[in-house]
């Protein structure tokens, strides 16, 4: 099956002085795919993700995001991607509605268009009653849904999620994954990092980084089969060696 590729990474290298954070990465992500980006702390995940989002330039190599070049088209890339970080990047002392307006404004969505879209979103999230409530006082699960929806407000074809479920309870984590599935079904490409190994199994394909390189990339099923492991946690422990994870 020839699937449409939306992220193409070729020979990506990123060095900080003598330290090679990304050591010749090569991978592709398909349109509508849920792509899990795993690795030890300090393996180079964040560095690579920043490059893919257009926030940092590679030392060498090529990166193509939906047909745009990472060196030349960073402004365009920022418009076609959504980004949600670990701590949800919401302003706690702004209301739900103000948060939506703030982030919409960054993407130039204003006036009538904004009001119509915001109303629709608030209805979809069942947040009519809390629209004027400070984000600080809404439950964690709601914050998370709101943060994801805000990252998707400008309808980007690609969304980057950096440990979006860290510390979240098992029920809310599962509700969040349903939003991810729904987004992927509507054709959005989801690029996600997580430290929960059961979540890695929700991904279509998973890459595991170790020491700046991609140690393995495959479907969770094949990764488990190839490593002779019963779950993703074992796959991870087999591929990433402790002494190496240290540095």
């Amino acid at each position, binding site marked *: 099956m020839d699937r449409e590729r939306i992220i193409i990474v070729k020979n990506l290298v990123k060095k900080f002085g003598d330290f090679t954070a990304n050591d010749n990465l090569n991978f592709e992500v398909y349109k509508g795919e849920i792509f899990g980006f795993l690795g030890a702390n300090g393996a180079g995940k964040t560095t690579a993700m920043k490059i893919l989002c257009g926030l940092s330039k590679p030392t060498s190599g090529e990166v193509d995001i939906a047909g745009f070049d990472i060196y030349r088209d960073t402004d365009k890339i920022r418009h076609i991607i959504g980004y949600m970080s670990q701590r949800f990047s919401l302003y706690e002392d702004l209301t739900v509605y103000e948060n939506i307006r703030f982030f919409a404004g960054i993407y130039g969505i204003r006036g009538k268009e904004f009001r119509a879209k915001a109303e629709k979103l608030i209805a979809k999230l069942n947040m009519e009653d809390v629209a004027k409530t400070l984000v600080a006082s809404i439950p964690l699960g709601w914050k998370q849904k709101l943060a994801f929806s805000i990252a998707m407000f400008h309808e980007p074809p690609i969304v980057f999620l950096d440990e979006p479920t860290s510390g979240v309870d098992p029920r809310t984590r599962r509700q969040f994954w349903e939003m991810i599935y729904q987004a992927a079904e509507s054709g959005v490409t989801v690029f996600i990092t997580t430290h929960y190994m059961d979540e890695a199994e929700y991904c279509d394909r998973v890459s595991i980084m170790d020491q700046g390189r991609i140690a393995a990339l495959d479907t969770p099923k094949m990764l488990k089969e190839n490593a002779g492991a019963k779950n993703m946690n074992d796959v991870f422990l087999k591929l990433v060696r*402790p002494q190496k994870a240290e540095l």
Partner: protein
Amino acid sequence: MFAVEAHNLVKRYKSVQALNSLNFTIDKGEMYGFIGPDGAGKTSLFRILTSLLIPDEGSATVLGYDVVKDYREIRKISGYMPGRFSLYPDLSVEENLQFFASVFKTSIEENYHMVKDIYSHIEPFKKRRAGKLSGGMKQKLALSCALIHKPEILFLDEPTTGVDPVSRQEFWEMLARLKKEGLSIVVSTPYMDEASLCARIAMMYKGDILAEDSPEAIQQMISGKLWSVSGARTYDILRYLRTFNTCFNIYPFGQNVHFQVSGDAEAVFQQIKNEFQNIQIVEIQASVEDVFLHLSARTEEEKEVLNG
């Protein structure tokens, strides 16, 4: 004497009830885990037990000392590793450890045996600024700093949150060795799979203890049979199972979906097998996470009933 004893412990923040009258005891030399997500009340509880926060109601003792009255003793005998990185990022690894040693009027040399096993991993980088360490190394330094004054009990608040599986495994191995030396260890974690590493756990959710026992006993707390289905896309199976009103407690677990059936299970299985090809359905032993999902769902339902 218990390592920790808590009676009707209550803590409120304005309108939020962080702890709803908690009661529990922890044995000396025991590895005891508080398992629960953000907002469960774990950090409030740890701050009370380390004398950094005063409870609104109830009482607690740590190795016989009252957490309010005897705070000086509590601080001498307790090692505390807070959830968020608590070290001085501008000081070097060695300076951080020296600082914590001197606060407790001791030195790295005097108590080196306490931290050797852990500190030796990061000693090669002792001149590096703490802010520049990787997640796993920060964690080891924080644990060394909590140990340098030779405490009798350790309180570790989410030491493995945001840390990769390899460092998490190493960390738990270190705790197991400390426990062997007789330390009482109280640890909290949002990772349900870490529960099995504790002798006993308390499952916390929204300020309550949902259940407290050994992980093995907790796994038995599910009523009825638990089934696991695999072989097709998780989300597709999930949605299909929800169309049955006889299926309940339906939760995805990686590439499997766990569920329970009221009534004729075989009839449901047959229909699932007709809908998907190459499907496997097996009866399974509940995990701690299954139990957490079931019990917290019950709490949510009860709240809905109460709120009308």
